[in-house]
């Protein structure tokens, strides 16, 4: 469950004087739900397009399911499902017809099983009862679901999804999240590109953070948000906390006191025995937001566009 599924080495894409992707080394392993985070304009989409052979790298290597891209695309892309920068369909045709045409336009989808696979994919994304109406009458959320159905048609080993919950209502987001987690439990590796930290936080086991074309962070989410070794004490009388634990207090911010030491029970006992009121205690963990902001330097959506 941990072999490499998607790796890049020193991947670079240069557009004229602009280096959109600047030497990134992605490492996505089988069974991951990999969150690929970055502000708008940080190079996420260009990277995703290079992974799928749509944009040709200036230099560097891409290996997808054991094959070099873009050369091996013909063999390997049928095993990958993708949603790239929003869904796109033929508006005058029905969802079913759209999926059928999409399936027929590439190798690897047997004609015999097509009708059934289309029906299953529609069922999976909650579009089973949508009938024959043309896609131009679909809502944004329905189109997004249809796009996802297109990615699932071939029962792929790897899903590459760019902003998959875009345009969905909260209920739809929950449904799609459940679907993705379900597929992941069934062995599908998911590569999820997003600028929404909350989405990545709820779904992903590993994250990579892209900032101005560079991969500034890549690790397991659990490692990144591991306890820092300090304890956060909430107390209405922070100065008395400092008096009791003198020397161990690292910072005071309102009623929030950061104390060195990773044993909240012992700290609590000291404070209570000294008569200091304690409203709450917890191990300090960096939030994913703090981790990402620290790595990216600038805030998401404010990354300077070169």
């Amino acid at each position, binding site marked *: 469950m941990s072999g490499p599924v998607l790796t890049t080495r020193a991947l670079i894409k240069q557009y004229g004087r602009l280096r959109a992707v600047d030497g990134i080394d992605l490492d996505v392993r089988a069974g991951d739900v990999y969150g690929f985070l970055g502000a708008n304009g940080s190079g996420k989409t260009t990277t995703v*397009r290079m992974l*799928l*052979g*749509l*944009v*040709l790298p200036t230099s560097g290597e891409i290996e997808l399911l054991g094959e070099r891209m873009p050369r091996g*695309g*013909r063999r390997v*892309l*049928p095993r*990958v499902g*993708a949603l*790239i*920068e*929003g*869904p*796109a*369909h*033929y*508006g*005058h*045709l029905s969802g079913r017809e759209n999926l059928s*045409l*999409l*399936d*027929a*336009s*590439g*190798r690897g989808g047997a004609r015999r099983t097509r009708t059934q696979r289309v029906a299953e994919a529609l069922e999976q994304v909650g579009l089973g009862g949508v009938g024959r109406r043309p896609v131009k009458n679909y809502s944004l959320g329905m189109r997004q679901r249809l796009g996802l159905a*297109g990615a699932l048609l071939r029962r792929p080993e790897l899903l590459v999804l760019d902003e998959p919950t875009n345009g969905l209502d909260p209920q739809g987001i929950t449904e799609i999240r459940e679907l993705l987690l379900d597929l992941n439990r069934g062995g599908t590796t998911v590569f999820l590109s997003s600028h929404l930290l909350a989405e990545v936080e709820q779904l992903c086991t590993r994250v990579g953070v892209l900032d101005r074309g560079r991969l500034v962070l890549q690790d397991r989410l659990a490692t990144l948000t591991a306890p820092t070794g300090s304890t956060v004490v909430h107390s209405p009388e922070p100065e008395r906390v400092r008096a009791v634990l003198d020397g161990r207090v690292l910072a005071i911010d309102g009623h929030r006191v950061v104390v060195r030491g990773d044993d909240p029970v012992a700290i609590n006992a000291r404070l209570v025995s000294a008569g200091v009121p304690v409203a709450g205690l917890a191990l300090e963990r960096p939030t994913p937001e703090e981790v990402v902001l620290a790595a990216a330097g600038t805030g998401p959506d404010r990354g300077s566009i070169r």
Partner: protein
Amino acid sequence: MIGVELRKMFQRPRTWATIAVLNALPILVAVLLVLTDLAPRPGEGPPFLSAVLRNGTLYPLAALAIVLPLFLPIAVAVVAGDAVAGEAQAGTLRYLLARPAGRTRLLVAKLVAVMAFVLVTVLIVAGVGYVLGTALFDAEPIAGTSVSGTSLTPAEIGGRTMLAIGYVAVSMLGVAAFALFFSTFTDSPLGATMGALAVLVASSLLFTLDAASPIAPYLPTRYWLAFVDLFRDPILWRDIVRGLALQGVYVGVLLAAAWANFTTKDVTS
């Protein structure tokens, strides 16, 4: 893949609307001719139109000659210009290529679909022309049906009409090659169509200019009307052969360039 592209082409309401509009003008002309009985004098107006009152079986040719200068190239340029750029604009190109459809395969399938459109369109115009011609005009072959003044038998007219249809289809393939070529460069189908039409307008304009006579034999529209020569007695092959060769060169070069561009470009639509 070719089947998929043909399905897309002929499932699309726009394809049939284009063909219907294309047939409107020959139908209108035929009705006006019947009602007024005023045929243009020989040598004036679109080729063959002066003869159709006497022989309705020539109307397919008159219909082709009516739509050839403008309507037919526009229709072909619209469809061929849409081939790749239309998918790019709709965003479906990235999904086709990620499927993967294969860039060469996709381009070949698009080309075949456009060729099928050209052929179907030309055949329908000729077919509608035949129905109109035989229903509205005298179908008796009388003296002077050939452009040279001699008579042609119905079998000869039939055979030569088929050759003319083939020749017009090849001419339109040249238009399609220009539009398809531009279509691989832009994400705007309108831009690709306009590019192809600009080439044709420029070609037609240069053709009328004496100063441009050194390059006249190489203009893509130069031999379009050479199919009239099929109805001389005997057939005057010279311009027809030149026309076919010229279109062959244009189609070959443009498709090679379209392929070279499309298989190496970054798809960012």
